[in-house]
Each structure stands twice: as structure tokens, then as C-alpha cells.
């Protein structure tokens, strides 16, 4: 009897099963940190004016979220109740400082570009929210997957917003990197090069300054929420 129970238990918990899959997929759509939980809006408005820094900060959040979850999960039975939040903050702050130091050493222009926003990952509600809600009650492996899922869910929205903001605000994509592309606007050699046509028909466009300002992110996130809910009816009236 005991033996059958044990085999059942191990069979029910594969390394990457249905539950783990759900932990990754859920934050991307049904339980997205930004569009459904409405967490982390501040940085989504602030850092999304260019695509490349947004990708960097998304990777940073995935990293911080995943490892903060693992560390907290490992310590979860030893953390004294009275300093629980302080310990979580120290874990997050340490990881963010690691990200900052690494960026400073390996990608200085990006570090300059993101400036205070790397430090502000510490205050990103998503990270602390996952530690408190998930990592304190789950095993390390699952917490790790949950962290990656939430980081990706956050990053996906960030990258979508940044794509539209950079395209309409500056007419470029990936500005500041070797593969920078000038897509629309008065001088767009990229279109010329890729399509091998005269791109003059695209040159009517002049950069939209609102897209550079954080206000544009608000509109784009609003539209994203609208689009998501019109496809995903179960999100309607969750409140």
C-alpha cells in the first residue's frame, strides 16, 4: 500500500509537468503581471522608449525574479517570521546589484541608458509579490519556474510596448546596437536595403513625439489590455 502511494507520488511530479507548464504559460496570458495583475506599471512606462534597453531590463527581471524565488524558497523554512520582508528585500537588492555590476562591466552604454531603472527593479512589485505569494510556500524548482514565467510575462509586455514606442517615436528599431534599423522616417536605408526598392513612400512620416514620452506607454498598455480581454473572455470582470 505504502509502496504504491510512493510510486504514485513520484509519477505525479515529473521535473517539467503540467503544473510547471502552467507556471510558465499563465503569467504570459491569463495571469500577466502587467495587464491582469497591473503590477510593475511604473517601470513599464519609464524604460520602454527604446527596444534594446527594454530587452535588457526584461532579461534582468527574469534573472532577478527567478533567482530571488529560488533563494527565498531555499531559505523559506529558516527565515524568521518577523524579518520576512526584510530578508526578501535583501535577496532582491543583492541580485539587482549583481545585475548592475555586471552591466557596468560588460555593457556600459546600456548601463548609462538605463541609469536608475536597474536599481528600481528592487521596488518592482512583481518580484516581491512572487516571493511573498509563491516562493515562501513552494519548493525551489517550482519557484524558479514561477520566477521565469512572471519575468517573461512582464518582459513580453515591455518589449511589445517598446517596439511601438520606438517605431513611432524615433522611426528606428534596436537603436544603439550594431543592428540598429531606421524603419520609417525621412532617411530609412534599412527599408532601402532589405526590400531593395526606393523607400521614398515611407518618408512622409515624421517622428511622433508623444510616443517618446511615458504617456504613450499608458495608451499602448491600455490597448493591449483591451485586445487581450476581447480575446480572453474569462479575464472580463475578474474584479
Amino acid at each position, binding site marked *: 500500500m505504502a509502496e504504491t502511494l510512493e510510486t504514485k507520488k513520484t509519477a505525479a511530479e515529473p521535473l517539467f509537468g503540467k503544473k510547471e507548464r502552467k507556471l510558465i504559460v499563465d503569467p504570459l496570458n491569463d495571469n500577466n503581471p502587467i495587464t491582469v495583475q497591473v503590477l510593475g506599471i511604473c517601470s513599464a512606462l519609464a524604460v520602454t*522608449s527604446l527596444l534594446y534597453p527594454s530587452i535588457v531590463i526584461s532579461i534582468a527581471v527574469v534573472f532577478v525574479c527567478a533567482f530571488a524565488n529560488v533563494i527565498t524558497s531555499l531559505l523559506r523554512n*529558516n*527565515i*524568521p517570521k*518577523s*524579518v520576512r520582508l*526584510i*530578508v526578501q528585500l*535583501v535577496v532582491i537588492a*543583492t541580485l539587482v*546589484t*549583481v545585475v548592475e*555590476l*555586471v552591466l*557596468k*562591466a*560588460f555593457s*556600459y*552604454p546600456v548601463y*548609462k541608458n538605463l*541609469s536608475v531603472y536597474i536599481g528600481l527593479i528592487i521596488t518592482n512589485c512583481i518580484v516581491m509579490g512572487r516571493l511573498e505569494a509563491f516562493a515562501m510556500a513552494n519548493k525551489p524548482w517550482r519557484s524558479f519556474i514561477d520566477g521565469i514565467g512572471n519575468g517573461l510575462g512582464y518582459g513580453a509586455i515591455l518589449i511589445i510596448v517598446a517596439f511601438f514606442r520606438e517605431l513611432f*517615436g*524615433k522611426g528606428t528599431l534596436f537603436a544603439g546596437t550594431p543592428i540598429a534599423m531606421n524603419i520609417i522616417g525621412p532617411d530609412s536605408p534599412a527599408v532601402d536595403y532589405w526590400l531593395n526598392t526606393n523607400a521614398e513612400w515611407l518618408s512622409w512620416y515624421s517622428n511622433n*513625439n*508623444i510616443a*517618446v*514620452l*511615458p504617456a504613450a506607454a499608458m495608451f499602448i498598455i491600455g490597448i493591449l489590455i483591451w485586445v487581450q480581454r476581447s480575446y480572453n473572455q474569462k479575464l472580463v470582470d475578474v474584479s
Partner: protein
Amino acid sequence: MNENTKTLIFVAIMCVVVAALLAGLRGVTYETAIENEKIFNQRAILLALGDNLPTPVDALSDEEVQNIFQEQMKSSVAVDVEGEVIGDINPLEIRLDEERKKDLSERKFPLFVYENSGEKFYIISMRGNGLWDEIWGNMALESDVATVAGVSFDHAGETPGLGAEIKDNKNWVNQFSGRSVLSDYNGKYTGVIVRKGGAKDKKYEVDGLSGATVTADGVTDMIQQYMSYYEPTLQKLKADGKLGMK
């Protein structure tokens, strides 16, 4: 062991571990970070030269940037407010944010000289205040020591799309090329004025930035201020192309 002792021990261990970890990582990455910052600043100085550089700054590798400073810019010097050369100081090591706090007579100013096939460019560095935080920049002057060859600005915290345009808006930055910092009226270095509502005198003024009046005025003030600091130096360069040693 009671609950409080346990908590204290936990926190103490946590602090030591975290401090050791971060200190170690910083120690490992410190040298690279300093090197990166140096090259970042060197690129900003070269950016002021604009089209006068054979290859655009973005296309240069880190080694090429350093080579330019070692070969074509080796006659760069540090000057004081009297226009005298201060020996034994690498102009790249002057930090204007610290110099700003000193007494005017004790300040050091970098003067970068770029030589390319007989043509000389003089690059000066400036630092001032924008709307939210400090702004800074470099201005390259042609060999007549009056015509602006190009400028580059940067900022610590201006609003993207508004004040930050002083760095991001290349069309606006390019306006400075060809303007004169030397006034025909009194023979003094008065700088280039950022005029709200559009440049009136195309020789000395550039168009303002809509929505960024305070930052633009900050640029004007910064240029005017540093022109007065560099005035003796630039006058000497204009007169005979040489500077005296202190």
C-alpha cells in the same frame, strides 16, 4: 535558543554573506567598469567632431578610439582659467563635476586637440545645469578657433522627448556646426545662443527646442559660462596657435 536570538543570528549571517558576495563581485569588475567609463567619455569627446572624423564614432572599436587619443590627439593639454598650460595632467582625467566645486582660479579645464592631415580641431568640455539635473557637453572648434565644427551633449536626467533631445535629436545638434562662438561686434567669445522661437541671427544662434525651454536655456548658459572660462586660452590660440606653460 529563543526566537529573538535566532532572528539576530540569521540577520547577521545574511549581512556578512551578502556584503562579502557584493564586495567580491565589485572587486572583480571594478577595473573593467573604470575602463568602460573612460572609453564612454572618449567617445563623447570624439562625437563632437561629427563629420570631421573619417569614420563615425559608432563604427569605431574601443581600441580605435584609444588609438585616436594616443596618436591624433596627443597634443591635448589641461589649461587654467588664465589660458596657461598646466603640466603633468592628463586632460582625460579632469572631472568637470568636481572642478565645478573649486575656486575659479584653481580649476583645470581640458583642451583636446585633434589633428587630421594638417587640419587642427580644438575640443573644449563644458558642464552646466539642465531642468532636473546636470547637463554636459563637448564643443569642437575649427582651426580658425571661432567656427563650431560640432557639439555633443549629454544629461543626467532630462525628460525623454523634451529636454533629452539635446542628446537624442541629431538634427538639432547638427545646427551648431558652422555657427561662430567669436563675436564680430566686440571680438570676444560669447558662444552660441539657443533661441526660443527660432534663430534670428544664423551666425550666432540656433533654434530652440519646443517643450524644453529650461534645458535649452541651460545649454546657452553653459556655453556662455565656459566660453568666459576658456576665453584667454582661445584668444591665445587664435593669435599664434600656441599656449604658454605655467
